């Protein structure tokens, strides 16, 4: 589904290929990729584009969270951010306008959100408007592959990625199917739980991430519960990158400058970090 698209649209790479390339590039610099999650319009609607640009200047891709009234895969932090964004009147249409106004960001944006607001917007209209706004793809946590065909069909003409998620309890045959279907990257959920919960035990998940990586033709991003440079160093040998979400939201809640926090995670396992002998492949 993905391959034909870039050719049909001329020399510019399809958004999903740009996303994949952006997440592969850090390996050449000897560090894992960093994907940062940011709830749209959080902490405040005003100034969101500035926050977004700041995050995109450091991260390799940005997940822009589309708030939903019933975020069933999210822990308290993102529930809170979602509710705060909705209370300020953040809508999918507003998010797409903001992204369009932001112009080309230093890191490709991906929309992460629950299915119902996307359905309400209309899938074909969504794909067209997202492509026009510079979006590279989608992560939809309540849309398993078995139900994804209409969504994939809408995204395909625009070369937009639909990122699949795998988890520690995904059986091998299903892992192979999800890895083959995923575009842009493969999202490896590191815990059985919601976002921002228990910190994953790096030893317990090393074997899991190694299995995911062997199955995946795309870069593997490990996420859910990643908060510290130490975790990034532990995950780095087993994944192509990490996703940080709740910890970034919490930094914003505290009024911290997200720049140093994100840079610390980005460089935790790279050449800029003190050599710690763990090695990066």
């Amino acid at each position, binding site marked *: 589904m993905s391959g034909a698209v870039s050719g049909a649209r001329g020399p510019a790479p399809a958004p999903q290929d740009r996303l994949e390339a952006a997440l592969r590039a850090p390996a050449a610099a000897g560090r894992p990729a960093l994907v940062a999650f940011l709830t749209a319009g959080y902490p405040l609607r005003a100034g969101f584009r500035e926050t977004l640009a700041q995050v995109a200047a450091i991260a390799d891709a940005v997940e822009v969270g589309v708030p939903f009234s019933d975020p069933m895969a999210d822990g308290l932090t993102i*529930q809170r951010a979602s509710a705060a964004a909705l209370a300020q009147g953040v809508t999918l249409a507003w998010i797409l306008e903001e992204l369009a106004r932001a112009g080309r960001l230093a890191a490709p944006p991906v929309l992460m959100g629950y299915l*119902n607001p996307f359905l309400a917007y209309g899938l074909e209209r969504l794909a067209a408007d997202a492509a026009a706004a510079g979006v590279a793809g989608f992560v939809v946590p309540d849309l398993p592959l078995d139900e994804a065909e209409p969504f994939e069909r809408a995204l395909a003409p625009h070369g937009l990625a639909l990122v699949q*998620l795998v*988890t520690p*309890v995904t059986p091998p045959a299903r892992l192979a199917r999800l890895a083959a279907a995923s575009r842009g990257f493969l999202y490896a959920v590191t815990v059985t739980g919601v976002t921002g919960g228990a910190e994953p035990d790096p030893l317990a998940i090393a074997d899991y991430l190694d299995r995911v990586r062997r199955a995946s033709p795309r870069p593997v991003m490990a996420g859910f519960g990643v908060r510290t440079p130490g975790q990034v160093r532990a995950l780095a040998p087993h994944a192509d990158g990490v996703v940080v979400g709740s910890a970034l939201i919490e930094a914003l809640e505290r009024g911290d400058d997200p720049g140093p926090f994100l840079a610390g995670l980005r460089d935790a396992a790279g050449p800029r970090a003190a050599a710690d002998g763990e090695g990066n492949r």
Partner: protein
Amino acid sequence: MTPTELLDDLVAGRLPDARGRFGPWGGRFVPETLVPALERLEAGARAALADPAFRAALDDELAGWAGRPTPLTHAPGLSAAWGAEVWLKREDLAHTGAHKVNNALGQALLARRLGARQVIAETGAGQHGVASAAASARVGLPCRVYMGAVDVERQAPNVERMRRLGAEVVSVDSGDRTLRAAIDAALRAWVLDPEGTHYLLGSAVGPHPYPWLVRELQAVIGREARAQILVRRGRLPDAAIACVGGGSNAIGLFHGFLADGAVALIGVEAGGRGSGPGEHGATLAHGRAGVLHGSHSLLLQDAHGQVGETHSISAGLDYPGVGPEHAFLRDAGRARYVTADDGEALAALALCAAREGILPALETAHALVGAQRYAAAHPGALIVVGLSGRGDKDLPALAALGVGGAR
């Protein structure tokens, strides 16, 4: 296929299909972590329900522990008041006081068979929570019940019953703090331990296989009611009427009469205090297609796909979604759905208590309003009403409303 052809499939037992669909409705929209758990549950439930030994054990417990079959009671007072012949299918007489026990017992037995270490459940009015607590105790599994903080307040007697039955009750302070938030919280808890926990979902909603599984376990209501009315009256009713929140007691009653095309099937939703957004829980009347809690069905939502607030005097009907099979039955024209508002429900409750000596639940009172309306349009009709639960749990709410007793 046309809705009518699909209806033939439904009557023949071919729906939901392999993907959990009733036509366009249903499916499985859940985080990836839950997909293997739902696949295991589906396979386990199919095997169990096809296993004569499991069915015999279930029937034995339904009879000896839950008190089935429940009576079909003639209601001469309501009949005289409404100019029809009204019979009440007495789920209020099932153990723990509502139809919820049929599903809770079946799923608890299933959970034990599938090796679950604990049971979690959500509850709105508290009836499903009480039934889950009791059934879990009966099969020897620990039980945790998620309940919206608003409902904890307005259904206090049931909170105490759950605790006495050994369940842990978790008051949910997020979201709308009612049934919808309780389901969100239960799903999040399930994601933490999808392999050791059985999620005992209480209505015919949620991801496949729940709408099917809950319907199969509630179908005993309609099977009994059909046999009983034939014995007592020698003919089928003109209408079978039940209240609809998620829709489990209604789907259970309706399934007994699905193949009997002449029997009108009528679901009654919560009309609340008006037809505007946030004033009711009437999803089939006012909802649009959408996805919530794992299922594609009708949904009360705003233009941006955010789930709408609801209101009903009855906690059990205070829900913005509805079971996918009801959306299908509406499309197919096999069932129709009406609303009863808060005031009508309170009046019907008072009449039933005064004339029949039966205090129904506030949810159930909505079904009585539907029967009253049907009787007005069809004088002399033979009507079976799903008397889904008893009203003891609502006494504090009734007192708070200043609703006096029958005089």
